[in-house]
């Protein structure tokens, strides 16, 4: 009787654990996408601020790129933006005291909106941004409105500078390219080495060497990634810099090399399992027909295990794509838009890890980072679905 109850309890516990974990995963995904979707009904202008020009200014619309150039003083004339023939004058609230003295601004800055209005209406070539609540009652300037950020723009734009003021630059393109490039090259480095090691372990090595080698390789997976990061920074970075004679050693390639080392255990273990699952009968038939050991391996065993080996490679990519700490430490984290492996780059996980702590909760930057998280999630989801598909195919063979 008592035993029965205990059994029931255990059964119930196992059942609920399964359900609870599925629900938690689902909730996390919903949370991720909900936060990210908020990005697309915001404009890139800093929240609570207005962007204004003089009423006589013919310009009605400026895009984020143009605004960045204006506030970086790269565009200095309205003419280049299709406007009047005059220099651009930037005016912010902090500058107010250079135009108006304290008594004009008033006690408690009560007269500030009036001063802002006065200065903007008097200065034809001005562009200004200030908090919405200082908006004067009878404002005589022109308020510029920015378009909301679109999914297309988010994916296509090439500048990632969410901390830019007053207009954030959120372009995910360089980050996506860098992440895929680094992971792909990592797998190109790791696959031949991993496959060779798997063949050695499965076919060539005798059982005594195997019992030593296997745990050592598996130990690689247990080293904390920050240790790999330091190793990379101190050893691989100067190495890459010298070999290729580069000005800087923190590059995409450096990241790829370390990620390749980190992906090795996954690749070796999965590929070795695939090679071991080749039926003995096939192997023996090949040997009986007079094929040598090597011929048997690359003509019979590898083709038979090919779907398993592909799965190993893809799981390795998955490991590399999501890796944060190493990417943060050795790839340089520059916002370069580049297809070159020998330049500093910045991956999605490193960006999220480095910036989430600073982004204000619920703000534009915060939501943009969640949108990056969604992209990463979709990439790994695709990888997992593909692995499932491959292993399903193998079973029906």
């Amino acid at each position, binding site marked *: 009787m008592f035993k029965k109850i205990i059994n029931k309890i255990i059964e119930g516990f196992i059942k609920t654990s399964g359900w609870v974990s599925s629900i938690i995963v689902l909730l996390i995904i919903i949370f991720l996408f909900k936060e990210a979707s908020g990005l697309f009904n915001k404009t890139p202008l800093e929240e609570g601020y207005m962007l204004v020009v003089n009423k006589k200014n013919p310009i009605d619309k400026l895009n984020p790129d143009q605004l960045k150039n204006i506030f970086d003083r790269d565009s200095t004339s309205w003419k280049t933006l299709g406007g009047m023939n005059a220099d651009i004058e930037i005016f912010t609230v902090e500058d107010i005291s250079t135009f108006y003295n304290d008594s004009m601004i008033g006690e408690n*800055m009560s007269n500030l909106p009036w001063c802002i209005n006065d200065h903007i209406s008097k200065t034809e070539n001005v562009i200004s941004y200030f908090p919405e609540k200082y908006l004067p009652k009878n404002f005589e300037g022109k308020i510029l409105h920015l378009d909301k950020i679109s999914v297309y723009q988010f994916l296509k734009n090439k500048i990632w500078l969410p901390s830019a003021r007053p207009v954030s630059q959120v372009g995910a393109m360089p980050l996506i390219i860098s992440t895929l490039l680094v992971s792909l090259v990592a797998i190109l480095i790791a696959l031949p080495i991993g496959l060779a090691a798997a063949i050695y372990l499965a076919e060539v090595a005798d059982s005594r060497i195997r019992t030593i080698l296997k745990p050592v390789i598996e130990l690689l997976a247990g080293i904390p990634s920050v240790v790999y990061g330091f190793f990379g920074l101190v050893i691989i970075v100067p190495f890459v810099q010298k070999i290729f004679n580069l000005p800087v050693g923190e590059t995409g390639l450096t990241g790829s090399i370390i990620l390749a080392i980190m992906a090795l255990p996954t690749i070796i273990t999965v590929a070795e399992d695939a090679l071991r699952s080749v039926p003995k009968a096939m192997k023996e038939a090949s040997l009986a027909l007079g094929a040598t050991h090597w011929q048997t391996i690359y003509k019979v065993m590898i083709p038979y295990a090919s779907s398993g080996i592909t799965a190993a490679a893809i799981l390795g990519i998955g490991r590399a794509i999501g890796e944060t700490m190493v990417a943060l430490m050795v790839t340089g984290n520059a916002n370069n838009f580049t297809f070159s492996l020998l330049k500093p780059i910045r991956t999605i996980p490193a960006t999220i890890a480095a910036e989430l702590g*600073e982004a204000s909760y619920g703000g534009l930057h915060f939501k943009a980072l969640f949108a990056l998280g969604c992209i990463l999630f979709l990439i790994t989801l695709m990888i997992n679905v593909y692995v499932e598909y491959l292993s399903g195919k193998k079973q029906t063979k």
Partner: protein
Amino acid sequence: MKKILSLGLIATTMVVALAQTAGIKVKGSDTVLPLSQKEAEVYMKEHKGSSITVIGGGSGVGIAALIDGSTDIAMSSRSLKMDEKMKLKDAGKDIKEVEVALDALSIIVNPSNKITQLTREQLEGIYTGKITNWKEVGGVDLAIVAYSRESSSGTYEFIKDHVLQKKNFGTSILNMPATGAIVQSVAQTKGAIGYIGLAYMEKTVKAINVSFDGGKTFIKPSVATAKNKTYPITRPLFYFYDKKIETQVAPLVNFVLSKEGQKIVSEVGYIAIK
């Protein structure tokens, strides 16, 4: 059941006891955080029964907490912004600003670099990505590799405001997760330039003199030049509090400003103001 009840009782009495001692809450800048923690630790050891809670989060977070009254002292690595002043006034608070320490940043290069001095304009060119070769600032023909801290760091904002005059960092600038990583990278990269807190200076890198007056005078970064404020990349670290509760927070503030408190400032790696 009894156990839970008694535990609950103990917990309640503890909470009540804590509330009764009326501790001082200090919140804000992560730059000032290690300093305040150390100061609070020593202060509490010397004043039995006092309680100080120190929480980080950033200068903006601390000042926001001061506005809504959830902290007694706000730590900040910058002075109050215009809109913060407005909000504090709206909340009926008369704020006292106390400078507790100084933080100076050194511009560092690789020791093999012949350059010994740069102007603010040149630094701005380098960090906005307009100057890309050392020969443009009087050095050898070598590409410049500019290292910066991540944008979550307080020093990032400081450099952006004071050296770049609020312009944005260029896209080719490398962002490092920690000061140690910058030192390591600058030490092993010939064309490197970076910035670190004065206290983190090491022999493997070389600090350069900077000029903020267009090249008339170049100032060497040191404790002395930071203290007399001739070194331009120096920022004060502040405590802000409402004058109404001065009697409550004064013992702690006075301790930080005392000889002993200022000794802790130097130990933590900042520059004492006295």
